[in-house]
C-alpha cells in the first residue's frame, strides 16, 4: 500500500528529470541518502571535533568518565584568550595574510599578462610555452625546497616574508596562467578585432575589453591562489626561523606544541582560527572555487 503510493508520487515527479522515476524511494534511501549521510559525517566530523575541543575547559578535555566527549558542558574562551594574548598567534595571522595577499596579487597580475600573451598574441612557439607552463604546475614544492633554501639564504631573504612572497608564485603562476588561458579562450576574437579596428592598442584591449569580460576567471584564479598559498607549509617551515615571522600553519605546529604537554585546546583553537579566513572566503565564492578546480583539470 505504502509502496504503491510512493511509486505513484515518484512517477508523477518522474517527468522532472531523466530516468530518476525508475528508482523507488526506499531504494534511493539505501543507495543514495544513507551513503551520502555517512560521507558527510566522516568528512565533517573532524571540524566538529576541532570546534568542540577549542571551547572545552581542560578538566573536561581529559575526563571521559564524567563528561561525554561529544559535548561540552562548560564552554570556555580561555584557550582562545591564551592564543590571542600569550602567543605570537596574531603576528602569524598577519604574516600569513601579508604573504598570501602579496603572492596572490603578484601571481594574478603576472599570469594575466602571460596567459593573454600565450592565448591571444599567439607569438611563434606560444603552444610550446603553454605546455611548459602546464608542466611547471606539476613540479611539486617537495622537490624544490632544498635548492630554494640555498638561494633564499644567498639572496639574504632568509627569515623574512619576502622569501615566501617571492617563492610562492612558483606554484601559483603556472596554475593561474593555465586557468586564465582557458578563460581567455572563451572570449570571442571578434571583440578584440573590433577594438583593434577602432585604433586601440594591445594594452588598451587587455585593460578595457579582455579584463572586464574575464572578472569571473580572475576571481577564480585569485581565490584558488589565495587558498593555495594560505595552505603552503614546506617553504614556510624551511625559510622562516624566528617565531614572530612564522605563518599560521608553521607557527601552530612548531610553537604551540611544547615537549610533553600538548595544549590540545589552544592547538585546536589555533587550527580553527587559521582555517576560518579561507573557509569564509571559500563560502562566498564556492562556485568560482569549484570552477577553477574543475577547470584546471578539464583543460
Amino acid at each position, binding site marked *: 500500500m505504502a509502496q504503491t503510493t510512493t511509486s505513484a508520487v515518484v512517477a508523477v515527479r518522474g517527468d522532472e*528529470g*531523466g*530516468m530518476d522515476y525508475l528508482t523507488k524511494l526506499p531504494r534511493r534511501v539505501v543507495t*543514495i541518502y544513507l551513503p*551520502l549521510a555517512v*560521507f558527510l559525517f*566522516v*568528512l565533517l566530523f*573532524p*571540524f566538529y*571535533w576541532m570546534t568542540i575541543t577549542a571551547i572545552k575547559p581542560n578538566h573536561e578535555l*581529559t575526563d*571521559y568518565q564524567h563528561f561525554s*566527549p561529544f559535548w561540552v558542558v562548560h564552554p570556555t574562551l580561555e584557550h582562545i584568550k591564551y592564543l590571542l594574548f600569550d602567543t605570537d598567534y596574531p603576528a602569524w595571522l598577519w604574516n600569513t595574510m601579508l604573504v598570501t595577499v602579496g603572492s596572490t596579487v603578484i601571481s594574478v597580475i*603576472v599570469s594575466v*599578462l*602571460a596567459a*593573454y*600573451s*600565450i592565448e591571444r*598574441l*599567439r*607569438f611563434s612557439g606560444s603552444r610550446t610555452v603553454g605546455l611548459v*607552463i602546464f608542466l611547471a604546475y606539476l*613540479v*611539486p614544492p*617537495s*622537490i*624544490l*625546497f*632544498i*635548492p*630554494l*633554501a*640555498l*638561494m633564499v639564504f644567498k639572496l639574504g631573504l632568509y627569515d623574512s616574508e619576502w622569501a615566501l612572497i617571492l*617563492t610562492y*608564485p*612558483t606554484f601559483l603562476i*603556472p596554475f593561474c596562467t593555465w586557468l586564465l588561458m582557458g578563460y581567455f579562450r572563451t572570449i570571442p576574437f571578434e571583440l578584440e578585432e573590433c577594438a583593434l579596428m577602432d585604433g586601440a592598442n*594591445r594594452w588598451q584591449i587587455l585593460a578595457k575589453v579582455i579584463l572586464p569580460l574575464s572578472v569571473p576567471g580572475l576571481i577564480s584564479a585569485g581565490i584558488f591562489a589565495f587558498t593555495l598559498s594560505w595552505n603552503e*607549509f*614546506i617553504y614556510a617551515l624551511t625559510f622562516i626561523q624566528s617565531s614572530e615571522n612564522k605563518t*599560521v*600553519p608553521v607557527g*601552530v*605546529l612548531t610553537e604551540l606544541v611544547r615537549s610533553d604537554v600538548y595544549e590540545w585546546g589552544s592547538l*585546536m583553537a*589555533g*587550527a580553527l582560527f587559521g*582555517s576560518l579566513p579561507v*573557509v569564509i572566503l*571559500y563560502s562566498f565564492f*564556492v562556485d568560482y*572555487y*569549484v570552477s577553477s*578546480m*574543475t577547470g584546471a*583539470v*578539464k583543460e
Partner: protein
Amino acid sequence: MSQTAQLVLRRAPRRGGFSRFIENRNVLGLIFLLPAAAFLLIFLTYPLGLGVWLGFTDTQIGRAGSFVGLDNYRYLIGDNVFRLVVFNTILYTVVASVIKFALGLWLALILNEKLPFKAFFRAIILLPWVVPTVLSAIAFWWIYDAQFSIISYSLIHLGLIDHPINFLGDPTLARGSVIAANIWRGIPFVAITLLAGLQTISPSLYEAATLDGANGWQRFRHVTLPMLTPIIAVVMTFSVIFTFTDFQLIYVLTRGGPVNATHLLATLSFQRAIPGGHLGEGAAIAISMIPFLLAAIMFSYFGMQRRRWQQGGRD
C-alpha cells in the same frame, strides 16, 4: 578613376596597421610573457637544475660541497632506511590513490543524482580540501591520540574493543592512520572534479542504453566509465602526484615514525637536508622522486590524447 584612388587611400593605412600588428606580435608576446618567465626561470627552473647539481655534491649547511658524482645515490641504494622509505611511499600512494578514487567516484555518482540542496552538499563536501592540510592534520592528531582518541572511546563504548587503540604508535596502525587521513583530505577533490565530468555526459546515452536492455551495472561499465576515462586520467595523475610528494600530513602526525614506518621520500629528504644538514643527500632523495612523477605525467598525457581522439581528433 576617383573610385580607385579612394580605394587605395582607404587600404593604405589598414595594410600598414596590419603589418605592424604582425611585426609586433612576437615582440609584444615576449614582453607580456617576460614577468612570468623571469619568475619561473629564477625560482623554478634554476632551483630544479641546482637541485640536480646538489644531488651530485656533498654540500652541507654552511659548507659548500664538491662534486662527488653518483656517491649520494650509491649510498642511498645501500641505505636500508631509504629503501624502506621508497617502499612506504609507493604503498602510501597506491593504497591512498586507489581508495580515494573508488570512494571519490562513488561520492560523485551520489552527487550526480537528483538531490535536494545539492549545491549546499557540494560546497560543504569540499571543506576538507579547502582547509589547510596542516591544520586539519592537527585535528587528526588529536583524533588519533593514544589515550584520548575519540575513535577508541566510541569503540570501547560500543563494546567492540577493551583498551584504546595506539593509532600512531604501532607501525602498521600508523601507516593505516596516515593513509586514512590522506584519503579524508583527497576524496573531495576527486569527487567534485569527477562530478564535473559526470555532468557533461548526456542523459540520452543512458536512455539509449536502457532501451537496449542494459542494467545499472552495464550502464555504469559501458557508458559512464568510457565517457569519464579522460578526466579520470587527469584527476588521478594530480592525485598521485600530490600523494607521492606528500609532506605536511606525515610531518604533523608521525614525523616518519614509528621506526620509519611512515617516512615518505619528501619527509626523509627534509629530515636529512634541513635538521640533518646534509643538503646534497636530501637533494638526491628529492631528485629520486622525479622518475615516478614523470611516469605519472606520461600517464596523464596519454589520457588527454584519448580525449582529443574522442572529440574528433582536432589538434
